[in-house]
Every structure is written in structure tokens, then in C-alpha cells.
């Protein structure tokens, strides 16, 4: 096979990996939108917050240290102990569930039948709040996150792919980051678990009922509040996983919260209400971006990565407003 083709395959593979990351974040959006009709803009910041908490716990950092020092003039920073990754992840998950409970009790309860635009803006408020709170709690410097996921290029894969190249070509094999592979696997596992959960378990069915019609679900005895707490906890968990993957890849920093903006085009393609849609959408955008960077980028001055996904989604939207898998909306008068 010719190097160009191999190079193309490599880009596609990397694209798929990136796509998986997008769909991971998109998944969080879809879950919350399906269950409560809220477009949770704060999903990205939740991932950032989860990652910050994880790193903070792992390194035994004192929460709100910056604030305490400012008030009492003390200089404490670390507790001194470090926590193995596994426990840190568990505690962070517990924190995310607590956060879901608090958010539902304090905010969602009061905004039950508000128009979607009001709920959407509440999540923007939540995003700002969480960002400030996260920085306050763990400091806003860039942190390295290492939970024992192998990272770096996989030499084994490079060797194998080099042999595919036709003789005499100076092709050095494909560069695949091990981390991306792990992330892809985790994502696949997560998707299967979620689909299984929502299809076959009692709670899952309740979740889909609430997504369809709040009043109807309540009338058959499903308590809206527990469902919402459950949903926000699951999306908190998804945010944690996304936070870990993104954090491990590019470090835990503010730009992590911008991935939410990345997930939007994915949702457009896949439709807001379908889990498979989120996955397929994510892959399309991932691959599309990488290929566009490769071929279209140079013509137009490069770095078209951040707006290309939107244009694709926009074009798609004009022809099929309800996305890949969403049902056609018939307007009744």
C-alpha cells in the first residue's frame, strides 16, 4: 500500500479516536436532554471539575487552600498524603453524585416547568459557577493527571504498520497514542453499559419514560426528582470519565471545559435524543476534522479545526433539522 493511503488511514484512525472523545462528552448531553429536556451546557465544566477534583485528591491537595491562605495568611498547600488512583476516582464519583443531588435540590426543583430557554441559561450559569468554584477549590494552574493509563506512542503498532508499506518507501509506520486506544475502549464499554442500562433495567425504563413525557411518567408513579438526580449523577460519571481521558491527554486546564463547545456539532448530527446518534455523530466529526485539516486546511490558511465541525453540522442541519436519528417534528396547531 502506498504511503499516502497509509497516511490517510492513520489520519482516519486518529480521527476516530478523537471522535470517540467527542461522543463521550456528547453522551453526557444526550442523557440529560433525554431525561429532563435540559440542554446541559455545563457538561464540559463538569468534566473539568471532576478532573480537578481527581487530581486534587490524588496529590492530597488542600481544597480552598488559596482562599484560606488569603484570609488567614497561612501557607498550607498539601496534606502530605497521596491517594492511589482507584480510591481517588471512587471519591470523585461520590462527589459528583453529591453535586448532582445538590444541584437538583437547590435549582432544578424550582425550575420544573420553565421554558427550555430558561433551563438552558440556568446551565450556562451553572457552568460559570462551577468553573469559578473549581478554580477556587483546587487552584487554576495546569495540572498533570496520571491515573496509570498508558500513554505515548505505541511502538508495537508502528512496527506492524511499517511492514504494510510497499517495499522501498520511506514510511515509518503509523503513530497511535496508547491513551487514545484506551479511551476508545472505555468509551465503547461505557456506551454498551448505558444502552444496556437504559433498555433492560427498571431505572433505565423509568428514565426513558420521563424523557418522553414528564406528566405521564409522574402519573405512573415515577418520582421525577429521583430520576433527575440519577440522570445528573450518570452524566457526572460520564463527565468524570471524559475528564480523565481529556485530562490525561492534554492536561487539566480551562480549555478542557471548551470541549463542550466541540460536542455541540456532534449533537446536531446525531440528534439530541439518541445515544447511538451521539456516538456516530462524534466519529463523523472526529474523522471529518482531521481529514479537513489535512486536505482543506492548507488551502484556507490552516487551523480550521474549531469552526469546521460547526459548518458541517450547519449544512447537515439545513437538510435534516432533527439530526440523523431524531424523529420528524409535525407541528400541530
Amino acid at each position: 500500500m502506498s504511503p499516502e493511503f497509509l497516511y490517510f488511514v492513520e489520519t482516519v484512525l486518529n480521527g476516530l479516536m478523537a471522535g470517540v472523545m467527542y461522543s463521550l462528552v456528547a453522551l453526557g448531553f444526550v442523557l440529560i436532554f433525554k431525561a429532563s429536556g435540559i440542554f446541559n451546557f455545563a457538561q464540559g465544566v463538569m468534566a473539568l471539575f471532576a478532573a480537578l477534583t481527581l487530581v486534587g485528591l490524588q496529590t492530597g491537595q488542600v481544597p480552598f487552600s488559596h482562599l484560606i491562605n488569603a484570609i488567614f495568611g497561612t501557607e498550607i498547600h498539601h496534606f502530605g498524603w497521596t491517594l492511589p488512583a482507584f480510591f481517588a476516582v471512587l471519591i470523585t464519583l461520590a462527589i459528583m453524585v453529591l453535586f448532582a443531588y445538590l444541584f437538583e435540590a437547590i435549582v432544578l426543583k424550582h425550575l420544573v416547568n420553565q421554558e427550555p430557554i430558561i433551563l438552558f441559561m440556568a446551565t450556562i450559569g451553572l457552568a460559570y459557577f462551577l468553573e469559578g468554584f473549581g478554580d477556587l477549590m483546587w487552584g487554576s494552574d495546569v495540572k498533570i493527571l496520571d491515573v496509570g493509563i498508558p500513554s505515548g506512542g505505541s511502538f508495537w503498532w508502528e512496527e506492524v504498520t511499517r511492514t504494510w508499506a510497499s517495499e522501498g518507501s520511506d514510511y515509518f509506520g503509523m503513530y497511535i497514542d496508547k491513551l487514545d486506544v484506551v479511551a476508545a475502549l472505555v468509551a465503547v464499554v461505557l456506551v454498551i453499559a448505558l444502552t444496556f442500562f437504559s433498555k433492560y433495567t427498571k431505572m433505565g425504563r423509568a428514565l426513558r419514560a420521563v424523557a418522553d413525557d414528564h406528566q405521564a411518567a409522574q402519573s405512573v408513579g415515577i418520582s421525577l426528582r429521583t430520576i433527575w438526580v440519577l440522570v445528573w449523577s450518570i452524566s457526572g460519571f460520564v463527565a468524570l470519565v471524559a475528564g480523565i481521558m481529556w485530562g490525561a491527554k492534554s492536561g487539566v486546564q480551562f480549555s478542557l471545559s471548551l470541549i463542550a463547545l466541540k460536542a455541540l456539532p456532534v449533537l446536531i448530527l446525531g440528534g439530541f435524543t439518541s445515544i447511538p446518534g451521539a456516538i456516530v455523530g462524534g466519529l463523523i466529526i472526529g474523522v471529518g476534522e482531521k481529514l479537513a485539516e489535512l486536505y482543506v486546511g492548507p488551502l484556507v490558511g490552516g487551523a480550521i479545526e474549531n469552526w469546521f465541525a460547526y459548518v458541517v453540522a450547519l449544512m447537515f442541519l439545513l437538510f435534516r433539522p432533527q439530526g440523523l436519528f431524531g424523529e420528524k417534528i409535525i407541528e400541530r396547531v
Partner: protein
Amino acid sequence: MLYREAGDFKSTYAADQQTFPIKSERYLFWAFMAVAFFVVPFFINDYWEKSILVPLLVWTMVALGINILTGYCGQVSLGTGGFMAVGAFACYKLMTGFPDLNIVFVILLSGFVTAGVGVLFGLPSLRIKGFYLAVATLAAQFFLVWMFNKFPWFYNYSASGQITAPERTVFGIAVTGASSAPWATYLICLSFVFVFAWIARNLTRGRVGRGWMAMRDMDIAAEIMGVSPFNAKLSAFAVSSFYIGIAGALFFSVYLGAAEVTEAFGIEKSFTALFMVIIGGLGSILGSFLGAAFIILFPVLLKNIMVGYLGWPTDLASHFQIMIIGGMIIFFLIVEPHGLAQLWRLTKEKLRTWPFPY
């Protein structure tokens, strides 16, 4: 309590439909305008101009624009930052391209340029609604910022990618550039805001405004009654972008003086604009003023308290600031989804029916 309306009857429709039907409010408004135009310029200093009054006025102009689009016509837009950039760059190119053209015309022209761009990015609103439209405008935001960054022609091939505003005068008084006096910049911004708030008031109470509000409340019924979505939505995008274009031009030429696109016109500008309109009150001209005042003055207040008074480091103060603003937004959406304007309307009604409960 404060209102004495007995005997204040209306004998013409014009009087019945005016902005301030109650006499005492009319006097209060004109008194306030007199102070703003004739008293403040004498007492303004650099600090007040640069960090409070001029940003407040420029952001009020933005809030007016967004209020027309989202508040009155119901079309959510996250592209405000990008459209401000269009205003700014149009202003820059016009200033450098036509040195002797008066700054006021330059600003107005940049408004029209932005209106054109706004209509272009408003086209998707004909087919898609709600979140999808928000995403489409987000595409505009990223695309525009990328465009102004990538093509040197926009910033006249300057090495740093920055655009700086040369000095321009109105009636001989420097308004842009380094040597512009605080009161001059304040007055030009104030005049723009005053005129265009009045125009916004006119637009929203006539046929156009009713068409927008009909489109916002129930677009199917509006369409069936003859409000064509094409005219209503695109006129809303055009007028809104016009306002944001002017604000962008003022923001760059009068307020900043020099600007780098990614830093000055990023996505957080779009969020700030949206917060102003939510907290201020969707669908109310007064709401735009109140929202802008809140979002601009509140952080200044916080900074003075935390940094000045408590002596905390500035980054800690900024974290607190973001957190509190996020918290305030949620608080407002719960307590009064229609914002400060609705709170003001309720207090006014309570005062008018005082001592009876409202």
C-alpha cells in the same frame, strides 16, 4: 406610594401609548437625562470613564441589540462576540481606508456592514429554531474570529495582528486615539446609546415590534396571521447586528483603542451579552440598561471589596467573581425569570396600588 396619578387622563392615542404615560415618571426620566448629558461630563475622570461609564454604555448598546433579537424576537444567538468583531474591523478598515471620513459616519457604516453579516448568519433561523439556532450562531462566532485572525488584510498586515484606532475628531474634539478626553468619549457613547435606545423603543412598539413579539410567543399563529417569518426573523437579525456592530466599533475605537481579535472578541463576550439580557429582563428596553449595569458594575464592586478592602490577590477575586455571577444568574432565573425589568415593573405596580396589595 410615590405615584399621584389621579387626574392624569389621556385625551389622545399618542399620549396613551407614550413611553412614560405617568407624569412623574416622565419628569424623572428627563431629569436623569439632563444629569447624564450636562452634569456628569464635568465630574468624569479617567478611572470612571475607562472602567465604568464607557464600558457600561457600550455594553448597553450590545444588550439593546441582543434584546431585540432574543428578547423581542425569541431567536437565541451566541454569535455576539463575532459580530462585535465585524463592527470593530469594519470601523478599523473604514478609518484607515478613508481618513477624512467623520468618525460618526464610520461607526454607522460599520453598523450597516455588521447588519449585512448578521442577516447572512441569520439565514439558518428560517429553518431551525431554539438550540439548533444557538449552535448555528456559535458557528458564526468561531468562523468570524478565525477569519479576522487568519487573513492579514483585515489588520492591514500589522505584525502583531492587532488593530489600533487612529485619532479622529467630532467638531474638532478628539474622540478616539490617545489624546481623547474622558468627557468626549463619554459623551459620544452616551449620544449613540440615547439615540439608538429611543429608536429601539420606537421599533418595538410599532408594527415591526409586534411582529417580532408574535414570532417569539407563538410563531405558527403569527405566520397564519400574516407575519412572514422571513421578514420578522431577518429584520431582527439585521437590526440586532446593526446595534452590535455599532457597539463593536465603539468598543474598539473609543473604549479599547487597540484590540486583538481572539482576545477581545472571544466566546465569553457572547455569554456576557446573553447574561445581561437574562438578568436585565428579556423583551424590555429598560432591561437592557439594567442588565448591562449589573454585569458591568457588579464585578467592579466585587473587585473593590475583595481586592481593595479585604486585600485578596486579584486572581482569587476573579474566581470569586465568575462564581458569584454564575450563582446570580441561577438565582435570578429562579426568583424572577423575567429579570430586573420585571422586578422593577412589580415594584412600580405595588407602589401604584399602595396601600392595597398588588
